[in-house]
């Protein structure tokens, strides 16, 4: 893809890219804005290059994810995310927990796999490409995340009754 094609591609996927960046940044919209800006610069200046043009969306998602991780680490927020997960995993959800806070209770990998599959309509193979992990590992994250999230949704429902 030349620069103009890349520009068109990024514009086409801008909304989805921003939403994914926000999800990778622990649902922090402000941080996601910085991340997406950096991603576009990397792509348009050729610092992030597509190896094959077969899966441009998974490549873009991968660049966004790694840029978000770098940004979270740079701002000292990466550990916060991990500690939060460990604490949340053990406790039961509350009635006031939103959809986002339920997802944030999951370990980061499980969050990302579930969001890619259910929210962004990607396959497990595509998710594996984004995460640069083996498909078997991704499937494990998917199954565990699905099971736990379902449990929490059920628990939250009991408050509504």
């Amino acid at each position, binding site marked *: 893809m030349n*620069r103009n094609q890349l520009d068109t591609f990024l514009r086409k996927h801008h909304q989805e890219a*921003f*939403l994914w960046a926000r999800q990778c940044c622990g649902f922090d919209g402000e941080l996601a804005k910085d991340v997406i800006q950096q991603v*576009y610069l990397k792509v348009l200046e050729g610092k992030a290059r597509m190896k094959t043009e077969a899966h441009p969306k998974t490549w873009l998602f991968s660049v966004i994810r790694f840029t978000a991780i770098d940004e979270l680490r740079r701002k000292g927020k990466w550990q916060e995310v991990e500690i939060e997960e460990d604490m949340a995993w053990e406790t039961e959800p509350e009635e006031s927990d939103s959809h986002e806070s339920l997802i944030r209770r999951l370990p980061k990998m499980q969050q990302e796999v579930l*969001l890619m599959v*259910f*929210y962004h309509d990607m*396959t497990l193979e595509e998710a594996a490409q984004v995460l640069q992990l083996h498909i078997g590992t991704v499937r494990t994250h998917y199954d565990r995340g699905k099971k736990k999230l379902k449990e929490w*949704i059920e628990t939250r429902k009991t408050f509504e009754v």
Partner: protein
Amino acid sequence: MPSVRHMNINKDPELKTFFQELRKQDEQLIIPPFPEVEKKSRSIWWIPAGIAATLLLGAFFLPLEKSAEPTAPEVLIITLEEGPNQELQFHIQETNEMDIWESPTASLLTEY
């Protein structure tokens, strides 16, 4: 790759609904406009142009530099010498440095 798309994922209907609701909530989010990334010109035409301009300016200004003016003589050497008819004549010599002057009696000092 069609095989990728056809991989069987057991999408739990409850989770599907959960994520659909999340998507619905996200419709309320304000998506920032596509950032206009400033296009960096990849052409390097300005490098030779810059060198040429520098050379032109150099050529223009160098000849205008004032050439070093000869410095005014700072030393006057006045000697009194005897002419052919045994009259005394003054010889005045202008110079910037003293080392060209030699005392007329210097030979006496060395011979002595």
